[in-house]
């Protein structure tokens, strides 16, 4: 990790728990570079994680950090953001956490367009529990619970977020890390629900069952299969099969939830001469 | 009136009986008494039947349910068939003749009044049949004071409907007046 980012880390919590070849450290580095670029105040930034390998990242970060229950990170984050809209709230989640057990929270947070930035570490597998298939495991790929290859269809989580109401959606890979950092920064800057899907490698639980034995091999796979969204306009659907479309996939303007709630407070207060609320300051 | 009065207001969902029960309970408090109001949704709610219960007392009210009402308002045939037999001996039953046609014999004082049709024809809106019933019931039983009843009514109806509701209350009062004299 670059020297300039060390101030964002709880160095006493290292070494981290991730396996050799895991891409999570690269995604985390991209997140921190985005935070650095935007000069976010650590005291005014909350990072919330769910359960899984990626969500463990929050414990290593020197911010206000919350490691929640499986799939619920967005619901906890919604409470934090609504209670204190002035805070930056970033959610770190994985493919199983966000789209299986947390799928309902995911679509509803997107629907509300609440100002949360979700960095979804997509390694296509449940890594922490040893390699079970997730809703983002591509059809035919093997997992411990899909020893013959999964017969389920996978979500396109970017498309899911867009149709649910997200106002910013981007995707990149750990190979395209500069792009990833830039997308995360743009997601944080967007006043509304932002999803940045980070394609990351899990050689231990996914790669070795699917003919990609090392992290390096998986990075090469990312390099060879990613297509920037700008190039896709000139490509036929058949050419895009099996490709990862990266870049800024979706952006639109829409009212943000907590801003609308502040407006609602102002209107309700005018009706009744109400007041404002200050968070607790202790006894 | 004894130290405790137990009322049951029964009829069909949509007749406003729960609101009527709330208004009576509210009026009792304005009279300086204790009151509780509850609605039982039991299985009977499925048949569209609705009932509100009110207990008015000078003392603390322990058990909030009504088993044998001293005052029973009946505004549908189904409610009559179900509850008429529960009436306390010596109790008062007020029947809306608009909707209750068959009335097997019951002990006690029974007042049969065309509540809903009067609301429709004289007040102009059947929607206020519950308030017509309240006027008649309070005139007959005196469970709460008329002043408290009017105050409670005005406190719990939508703004802009005061005139309509006060007219309904007066109409109910007069309806009872006619049968009492």
């Amino acid at each position, binding site marked *: 990790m670059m020297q300039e980012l060390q101030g964002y880390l709880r160095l*006493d919590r290292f070494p981290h728990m991730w396996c050799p070849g895991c891409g999570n450290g690269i995604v985390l580095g991209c997140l921190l570079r985005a935070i650095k670029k935007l000069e976010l105040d650590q005291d005014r930034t909350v990072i919330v994680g769910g359960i899984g390998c990626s969500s463990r990242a929050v414990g290593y970060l020197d911010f206000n950090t919350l*490691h929640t229950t499986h799939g619920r990170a967005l619901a906890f984050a919604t409470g934090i953001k609504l209670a204190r809209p002035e805070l930056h709230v970033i959610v770190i989640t994985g493919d199983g956490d966000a789209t299986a057990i947390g799928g309902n929270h995911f679509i509803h947070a997107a629907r509300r367009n609440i100002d949360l930035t979700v960095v979804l570490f997509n390694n296509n597998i449940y890594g922490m529990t040893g390699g079970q298939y997730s809703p983002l495991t591509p059809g035919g790929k093997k997992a411990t619970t899909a020893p013959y290859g999964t017969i389920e269809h996978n979500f396109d989580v970017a498309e899911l977020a867009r149709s649910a109401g997200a106002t910013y959606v981007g995707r990149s890979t750990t190979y395209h890390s500069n792009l990833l950092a830039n997308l995360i920064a743009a997601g944080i800057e967007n006043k509304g629900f932002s999803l940045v899907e980070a394609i990351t490698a899990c050689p231990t639980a996914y790669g070795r069952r699917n003919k990609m034995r090392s992290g390096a091999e998986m990075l090469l796979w990312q390099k060879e299969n990613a297509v920037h969204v700008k190039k896709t306009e000139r490509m036929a659907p058949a050419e895009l099969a099996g490709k990862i479309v990266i870049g800024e996939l979706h952006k639109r303007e829409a009212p943000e939830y907590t801003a609308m709630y502040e407006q609602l407070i102002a209107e309700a207060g005018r009706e009744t001469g109400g007041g404002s609320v200050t968070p607790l300051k202790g006894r | 009136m004894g130290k405790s009065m137990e009322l049951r207001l029964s009829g069909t969902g949509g007749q406003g009986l729960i609101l009527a029960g709330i208004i009576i309970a509210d009026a009792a408090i304005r009279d300086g008494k204790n009151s509780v109001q509850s609605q039982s949704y039991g299985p009977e709610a499925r048949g569209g039947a609705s009932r509100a219960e009110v207990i008015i007392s000078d003392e603390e009210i322990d058990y909030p349910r009504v088993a044998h009402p001293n005052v029973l308002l009946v505004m549908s045939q189904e409610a009559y068939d179900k509850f008429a037999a529960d009436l306390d001996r010596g109790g008062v039953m007020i029947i809306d003749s608009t909707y209750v046609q068959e009335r097997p014999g019951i002990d006690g004082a029974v007042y049969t009044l065309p509540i809903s049709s009067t609301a429709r024809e004289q007040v102009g809106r059947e929607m206020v049949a519950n308030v017509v019933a309240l006027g008649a019931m309070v005139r007959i039983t005196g469970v709460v004071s008329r002043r408290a009843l009017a105050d409670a009514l005005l406190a719990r109806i939508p703004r802009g409907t005061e005139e309509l509701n006060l007219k309904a209350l007066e109409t109910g009062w007069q309806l009872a007046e006619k049968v009492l004299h």
Partner: protein
Amino acid sequence: MSQVIEMARLMQGNEAVAEGALAAGVRFFAGYPITPSTEIAEIMADRLPRLGGKFIQMEDEIAGLAAVIGASLAGLKALTATSGPGFSLMQENLGFAAMAEVPCVIVNVQRSGPSTGMPTSPAQGDVMQARWGTHGDHPVIVLSPSSVREAYDLTVRAVNLAEKYRVPVILLMDEVVGHLREKVVLPARGEVETVDRPSPKVPPGEYVPFRPEDNLVPPMANFGEGYRYHVTGLAHDEKGTPTNNPALAEQLLLRLHDKINMHLDDILLDDAKFLEDAEIVVLAYGSTARPARRAVKEARGRGIKAGLYRPLTLWPFPAKKVRELAEQAHSIIVPEMNLGQYRLEVERVVRDRARVSGVNRVHGELIEPEEITAAILEVV
């Protein structure tokens, strides 16, 4: 100086919960609609924004409690309300709040179960779920009101206890009390005692987030105020760092228990009637205490030395008091709208010091006074 006008009002139990919550300083509500608790959400949706507070209807009860915990961490007093099916869904994050020591209040207006049961009918079937519904061992505080005024008072108390001890507190109501309207005189705003969470007395650099003070409660910093720390549902050390160290994990769980057990005098609350010379004690809580009180009065009228003991704090269990009652009385009768959940605990504590019996109904109706009277006559 504002004049204090005591005014009697007709108020519904659920409404009293909302009023109590607002008076206690609750400024955040997240929940999901469910009969028979929905009025609480409806009132909070109307009132909170006028006070600058926040209301949000979440996608389910799991999310409701999650958002409440998030808001509490961000510094707002927070509450949610639900009924049985939703309470079941909340267990996951109830355990989280206990483990991470996040103050919050969960109101459960009990209805008939199991499963969807009879949504509009009362029951008291969640007594054990309130105590043992989550996985793992942790203490809870559970309060149960019998009247509309008590619903108000115990909501205030629930918020205060949650803040003081950094625990989730459950207000265990039932449909009867939730929907009952009765006369109440509420205290004036200034007369309501409110308690705020203990805040750190040291600067951020010296803050150890889960290091308790002498009362075993660690001071709590709110997110966004300069104290950066880590909150997790994993077993953790005093710094909040996840740990698999058996000694540290056990130390944490024992402290979570001890911080409640060492304050029983403050937490336990009860009420009694005719108990001084009682030989037969009716032990009742929630709406069932109302027919119980009438039955006890009726028994006294017949010259039977019956008394009523009413725990307002259901959990922790008032073991010392119940043991005393067992020494004094020959019989204890526990009427409940379940098949004997609280009676199990009474029996466990009483052992063979007194005869313990129940009046148990699960038909979705409030138990009638006559049923309790019959149980009293049986043991005279």
